[in-house]
């Protein structure tokens, strides 16, 4: 029997569960970040994200949410402090180790970063393709995931042919398709309607239920309140509130 759009998100059938970790998935120790010798955007930040945890990251525009996510994704390097990912100190990472670590992270970029010359299906399947999976092994999963985020009829369309909201959902599908150990999302529901926002949140919750650690940066107070999940709040570059199994140092 095929899935219907009202069924749960298609995450549990085909992809291997995340590898178990003994320690926290993410650990920040007195991390600071400044750009080009300028003032620090993030200051002396310490926290841990335990495996299987689910957090929202909130704060005003410019508070440093995106910078924090980029630090976790190893796009930026901290100017001070240490970041540990999956038990690996990123300061001692060799360049060749970066791809393998990044494959364990699903990232929803605020600017989506879709590839315009690939259609929606190929965009969504990109992480699986880079990990060496064969089309025959993943085509049904990808098609089902795209249908679940409402792009079942648009999988042959390229990003320029999609609306902003469709592009956002495609970026989310790409981030979750490999069932990553860690999902970080930057304003994932910014361009979608209320109903789709709830649907996407369900997707994240289901992913989290299957073991993925989730961190979502958002301005959507309604979504935060509805989920009842712990919140990390950044104010003036500092972590002001951390309600979870971890704690602000």
């Amino acid at each position: 029997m095929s899935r219907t759009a009202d069924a749960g998100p298609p995450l549990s059938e085909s992809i291997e569960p995340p590898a178990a970790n003994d320690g926290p998935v993410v650990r920040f120790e007195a991390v600071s970040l400044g750009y080009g010798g300028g003032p620090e955007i993030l200051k002396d930040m310490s926290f841990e994200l335990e495996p299987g945890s689910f957090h929202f990251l909130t704060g005003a525009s410019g508070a440093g949410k995106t910078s924090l996510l980029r630090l976790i994704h190893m796009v930026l390097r901290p100017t001070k402090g240490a970041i540990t990912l999956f038990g690996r100190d990123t300061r001692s990472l060799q360049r060749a180790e970066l791809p393998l670590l990044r494959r364990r992270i699903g990232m929803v970029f605020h600017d989506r970063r879709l590839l315009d010359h690939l259609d929606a299906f190929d965009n969504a399947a990109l992480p699986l393709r880079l990990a060496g999976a064969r089309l025959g092994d993943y085509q049904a999963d990808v098609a089902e995931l795209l249908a679940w985020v409402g792009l079942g009829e648009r999988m042959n369309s390229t990003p320029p042919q999609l609306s902003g909201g469709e592009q956002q959902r495609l970026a989310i599908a790409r981030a979750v398709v490999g069932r990553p150990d860690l999902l970080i999302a930057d304003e994932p529901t910014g361009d979608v309607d209320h109903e789709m926002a709830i649907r996407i949140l369900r997707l994240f919750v289901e992913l989290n239920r299957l073991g993925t650690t989730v961190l979502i940066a958002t301005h959507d107070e309604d979504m935060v309140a509805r989920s009842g999940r712990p919140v990390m709040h950044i104010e003036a570059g500092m972590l002001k509130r951390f309600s979870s199994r971890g704690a602000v140092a």
Partner: protein
Amino acid sequence: MSRPPVNRRPPAPLLPAEDARDGALVFVVAVLCFIACLALVSALAADRTAHGWRTELRGSATVVVRPGPNETPDAAAARAADALAGVKGVSEVEALEKEKAEALLAPWLGKDLPDDLAIPRLVAVDLDPKAPASAAAMEQALKGAGVDATVDDHSLWLKDILRAGLLAQTAAIGVAALIVAAAAAVIAFATRAGLQARGDLVGVLHLAGAEDGYIAALFQLRFGRMAAIAGLIGAGAAAAVAAIVRLLGGEAGLMPVLPVAWSDLLPLVACPLAAGAVAALAARVTALSLLKEMT
């Protein structure tokens, strides 16, 4: 749980299929391959010519005979021919008559030579090409027969021809090396431009977990294939030009010094492969180097 069948076409290439710069790049590399192939054909023809000259000179010697006070030049030449005929490595000996000797000197001294001019008598010696007699052996035989003569085994000319042949080969290798370097530089430049133009794509691939080698391979494949096509075009054009030269000029070609043979065109088959390999290597090295600078 069964799911609806999905029949997707194979994944699209991660690098966009077309680029406005591709046509110009194919043209430049094809021209370089054309020049390289013509240089190769010329080098092969020059080498064959030099080889023919060497064989001819090594296979013969000339003996200049000076008659003694009490003998005629003809008698002295005949004695020299007898003495040389018994030398190992000599296959044929001919004492040239006075008229033939004068004919040989005609380009320098003219046709009507005075009767009292002492014309050296020559003996033409054909040598065994497998084991030619040495000049020393022939001189010793002449001396033993009491003939005053000088043996010219053409070694002086052979050295010049060997030097000229070596020079031609070195020049051809130099031209080929320059062209390979130029092609590699063009491909490296194109790769760098391609990577920078596709910075967004490279960034997404990196962030999605692509290794440097994987991204470099995309550019390696793209430029390797493109250069192979350009090599095919360049080699084809060069082969056409060489074939026209061969057809118009016969075995001697249009230039007697560079007689093109059909076999000279065979090595051109390797041009597309060589161009593809050089381009792929240049693209990979450049891409890996540039990717290290990118996040």
